[in-house]
């Protein structure tokens, strides 16, 4: 606390660097929030272009554009970068901007560490992207990195392991900051159970990160020593077990998929009440539901592994516990619907994205329930059904909530209103495009098309062509998003303090744009 106050004083009394140095050395939560968001935006276009290359190759059967090995590099890097380079940094950007503003705090608890947490990311990003130019190309073993396949790769595999370590370090530093800020720096009177839901979801997410990132670090370190130092953790010939990697990996990666969605729940829970002009329905049960999802996420990891051949008892346990997660998730959806019920709704772009989130995320949730049934999963796992499932939760879930959040807070951040026409165009093209890409993939998966293949049998042609067309619609409509953001930063209609009629919370009590330093004296919450 006193540290933060001190850092803050320093800013008040000395001129701070400008230009490039301002961004390199900044300890201001708003600058750092912007950095995270820009990083995520750039990475979105990188990983998005890879997705379009993948879809272009899959436009028709046969190998057209690339070698299978390069195809595998693209799917792997697309996945890794979308997860670690787009969704997670974007959410961190929101946390940096919004958590202090929502809590009435002057900055994050550890501003200097905050700077470090961000600047590690571009380092890791360059390592990942640069590995395309190494001998043998980038990592091609899937973002899941299963050995023994992962042991076979070239030098970029070692580089990727290092990049994963660095990104994990960054996440842990960010999480410590968020937890400390939320627990220690709330304005007087702002009890935990009055705190905006976005802060709650990030608090829980940050704990998930701290619990799981070391597990990932352990798993990839074991890969690294297996690859380079003759250990045999995952090598059966040396007494190891390849399936052990999967257990460790998914013990990290299942909670990780909730890391990718809980902050989205938070954003949507801020946006919907604003445009329904009605308080969030069931605030307390939202908090409990979020916490139960987080806790349950630690006992269901092996539902990603039904096909490795588990004993009956194992399959049944993981099937039942996975199904259980549907209960709190359902509660959340019902609460959002009840918030809209008897509201006084308007449909600005953030609200449109939030509504699309609720519907489409639910479709992703339902396909998740289908996959939870172990026998059905045996047919569907590692097919395009799974690709459809996780893109419904990641694209129309995580990514759409990010769009909703950007449109929602951009006027607060920049002081300018975005163009509602462009925003709505972006919305409709994205929703339509997104469904054209991913809905047919359910059918492809059911009919038996495996995932991660560069070429396919003839009966899968039509749906693949539809998906590819959708991908290009979705991909290119993101250029509209880029335009909206850049235009709004440059100028536009002046935004008021309380940008949205129905907006509640401390962030709407400060001017737009939010001044470089806010809450020099803590506001009091009744």
């Amino acid at each position: 606390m006193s540290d933060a106050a001190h850092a803050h004083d320093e800013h008040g009394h000395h001129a701070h660097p400008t230009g490039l140095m301002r961004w390199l050395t900044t300890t201001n939560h708003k600058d750092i929030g912007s950095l995270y968001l820009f990083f995520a935006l750039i990475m979105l276009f990188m990983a998005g272009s890879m997705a379009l290359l993948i879809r272009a190759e899959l436009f028709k059967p046969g190998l057209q554009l690339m070698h299978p090995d390069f195809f595998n590099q693209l799917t792997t890097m697309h996945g890794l970068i979308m997860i670690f380079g787009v969704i997670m940094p974007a959410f961190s950007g929101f946390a940096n901007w919004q958590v202090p503003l929502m809590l009435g705090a002057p900055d994050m608890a550890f501003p200097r560490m905050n700077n470090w947490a961000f600047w590690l990311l571009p380092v890791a990003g360059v390592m990942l992207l640069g590995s395309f130019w190494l001998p043998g190309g980038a990592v091609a073993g899937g973002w899941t990195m299963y050995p023994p396949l992962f042991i076979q790769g070239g030098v970029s595999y070692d580089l990727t392991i290092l990049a994963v370590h660095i990104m994990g370090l960054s996440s842990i530093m960010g999480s410590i900051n968020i937890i400390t800020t939320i627990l220690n720096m709330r304005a007087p009177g702002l009890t935990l159970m009055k705190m905006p839901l976005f802060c709650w979801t990030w608090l829980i997410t940050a704990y998930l990160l701290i619990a799981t990132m070391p597990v990932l670090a352990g798993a990839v370190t074991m890969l690294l020593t297996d690859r380079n130092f003759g250990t045999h953790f995952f090598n059966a010939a040396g007494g190891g077990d390849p399936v052990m990697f999967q257990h460790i990996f998914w013990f990290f990666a299942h909670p990780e998929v909730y890391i990718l969605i809980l902050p989205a729940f938070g954003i949507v829970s801020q946006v919907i009440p604003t445009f329904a002009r009605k308080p969030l329905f069931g605030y307390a049960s939202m908090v409990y539901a979020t916490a139960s999802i987080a806790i349950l996420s630690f006992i269901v990891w092996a539902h990603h592994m039904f096909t490795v051949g588990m004993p009956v008892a194992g399959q049944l346990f993981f099937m039942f516990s996975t199904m259980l997660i549907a209960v709190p998730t359902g509660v959340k959806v019902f609460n959002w619907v009840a918030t809209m019920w008897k509201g006084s709704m308007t449909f600005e772009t953030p609200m449109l994205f939030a509504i699309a989130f609720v519907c489409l995320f639910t479709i992703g949730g339902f396909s998740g329930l289908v996959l939870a049934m172990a026998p059905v999963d045996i047919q569907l796992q590692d097919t395009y059904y799974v690709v459809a499932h996780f893109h419904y939760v990641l694209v129309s879930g995580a990514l759409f909530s990010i769009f909703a959040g950007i449109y929602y807070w951009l006027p607060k951040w920049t002081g300018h209103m975005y163009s509602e026409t462009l925003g709505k165009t972006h919305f409709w093209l994205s929703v339509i495009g997104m469904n054209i890409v991913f809905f047919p993939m359910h059918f492809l998966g059911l009919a038996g098309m495996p995932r991660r293949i560069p070429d396919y049998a003839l009966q899968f042609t039509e749906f693949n062509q539809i998906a590819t067309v959708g991908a290009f619609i979705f991909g290119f409509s993101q250029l509209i998003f880029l335009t909206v953001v850049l235009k709004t930063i440059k100028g536009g209609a002046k935004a008021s303090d309380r940008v949205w009629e129905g907006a509640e919370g401390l962030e709407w009590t400060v001017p737009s744009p939010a001044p470089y330093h806010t809450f020099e004296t803590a506001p009091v919450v009744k």
Partner: protein
Amino acid sequence: MKSMWQRAALVGMMGAASQSALADYAYNLQPPVSEVARDIFHLHNLIMMVCIGIFIVVFATMFYSLVKHRKSSGHQAAHFHENTTVEIIWTVIPFIILVGMAYPAAKVVIEMKDTSNPDMTVKITGYQWKWGYDYLNDGVHFYSTLATPREQINGTAEKDPHYLLEVDNPMVVPVGKRVRLLVTANDVIHSWWVPAVGVKQDGIPGFIRDAWFKADKIGTYRGQCAELCGKDHGFMPIVVKVVSEDDYRAWVAKQKGSAQAAAADNGKTFSRDELVERGEKVFQANCAACHQANGMGIPGTFPALNGSKVATGPIAAHIGIVLHGGRPGTAMVGFADRLSDAEIAAVVTYERNAWNNKMGDAAQPADIAAARGAVVAAAPAAQ
């Protein structure tokens, strides 16, 4: 939000399609030909119906308020923000629905896992990138590789109807028999998946997992490897031919005959031209996927054989690599248990005389047999 309704309609279609008449179209689970696959099909239908039902109820409510409770139509916001009774109801009801779904699902899990009392057992081994089959009761052994010609893949020839789903040697099983599968892998993890019989089982190097099926309809059923296993993961199909008991017996007899012929080959001496000619076929089937038909390999990943130190160096080292694989950790695995002595002799000879490698020498089956023996003796010392 019109697209929502279209989607709902599509989901509905998918449910209706499960009533078998439309089931041949490639947008639903493949028509099942075993008890387990049928149970999975029904389980999937059940869950789909439940999901569609819930979806309609919840989103009809939501769309009602989207239409009726909008500010532009003058609706004033109410101020309620909790209701314990409602919240308890919508926690408990889904829970009960889930329990209702868990019961039939658990029954199928138990059925799938019961591999007892098989009529026959087949050991299946995944390799990069082919499948090996060992019939433990009938002593048949063979490999099964993609049969689609490269020209079709590269687009210079017309693709046939079973493009990418055709193999040289399909797995053959009798109809109506419980077949126990022992699945493993030799290099990386693969997954043996044939949707119509309801089996997907990972093959894990160093471990053996079992699964079973009993096909109740004569026919040809196709599947693919379902675990990312490297470059040619997409080119690793599986074909199961379910035949009558008599046809199965006849097939076993024929397989044994060709195994004897192969064994006889191992005892022969061939001319260099014979070896080169046969070696080219072996090369295309086993080596060209990585080293390429033109011997140029893939720079950075797979070494070129044209002009390589191995293919133009001492022949013993060359034989050693083909038998036992390359450096640990590379994708080059040994072919000692995958190819016969005659085949290895042929392919080594081919590699040494093809492209610009005009070595002019040859390896004979007897050389390979000797090289095998040498390593068996040396192995304990190396440990």
